[in-house]
């Protein structure tokens, strides 16, 4: 009850200040410092992923740099990894993945599913 009263009082006094503090707190929480993530590279060429199989450390978050060398857009998509990232033609994109349990995680290019297939193996 006391907590509710305090919140009401805060909103009455300075609603915008309260909201700013809320936003700032969330931003700080989400940007808590941590170690650098290891980087891995994928290239999209002729509607295929190179390499088609990528080995990454298990239980570690990784930074995946995806370069699309084709002139057309491609979408890196994986339901097991829960990632859907559009990479416009002749451009790059960044995807953060994991930490992953040991296992195999397939991914595909949504716009060229017949050829653009790959997998990430976490060991």
């Amino acid at each position, binding site marked *: 009850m006391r907590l509710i009263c305090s919140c009401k009082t805060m*909103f*009455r006094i300075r*609603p*915008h200040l309260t*909201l*700013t503090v*809320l*936003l700032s707190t*969330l*931003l700080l*929480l*989400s*940007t*808590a410092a941590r170690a650098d993530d290891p980087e891995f590279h994928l290239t999209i060429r002729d509607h295929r992923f190179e390499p088609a199989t990528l080995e990454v450390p298990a239980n570690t*978050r990784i*930074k995946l740099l995806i370069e699309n060398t084709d002139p*057309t*857009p491609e*979408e890196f*998509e994986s*339901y097991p990894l*829960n*990632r*859907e*990232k*559009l990479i*416009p*033609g002749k*451009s790059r*994109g*960044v*995807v*953060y*993945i994991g930490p992953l349990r040991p296992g195999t995680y397939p991914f595909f290019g*949504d*716009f*060229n599913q017949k050829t653009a297939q790959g997998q990430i193996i976490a060991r």
Partner: protein
Amino acid sequence: MTSITPATFRTSIGAAAAVAALFLGAHHACADTPDLKVYSPIVEPGEFAIETRGNLAIDNNRDKDGAQNFHHEIEYTPTDFWHTALIGEMVKDADGSLKYNATAWENIIQFFPQGQQWLDLGLYVEFESAKQHGAADAVEWKLLAEKDVGPLTFTVNPIFEKEVGDNASKTTEFKYAARVRWRLMPELEPAVEAYGDIGEIRRLDPPNEQRHQVGPVLLGKFQLGPTSALRYEAGYLFGLTSGGSPDGAFKWLLEVEHYF
């Protein structure tokens, strides 16, 4: 000379938009016909889309039954952190006819690449120009927060809205939208969504007059071609308060996307 990284630039724009929205204040004419959409902080660079969405209130009370809200949007995402759209809003009060209500400009700033931080965060800022006589313009901002947990994605939008300009009469209002989505397959993702409007934050509505709705929603995406897709949402929301919520509401969304 100090260099500006993309992340610094993105965060600066987000912070500037947040401050601008906070100090401009952040509702508008038709609180009885809410917009029922949950926003993800994740934007897709190069996406051009046309979207139409709406909802229809169902209630035994004639004062609420049949109220409708429609949004028609043209969207573009020029960068990997900024999405913008032009919106036309139409509403129909329970006892009225369908009217053009407002023109709005929405912007979403994605703060970080997806998965980089523990929580994916973004900011939604909308400037709305009322088109009905005597109605007030409005500024609305939402914090967009998303977290993946196993096969589930949780998304929460605290929403702050304030009338501005000559006909403004309300102080900042607080609303919310939230969703938990099960990523079953691209074509079908079952979800539960919740929406609410608790009134002005300086003077909350009595609990029974607040709007709280919750219910099942289906989402999905079908490829239309090499670089085009059709997204859909359809669901039914149950009202949780007898005074402020309709007994039920159908909601739907259709979006045609093209990627450049």
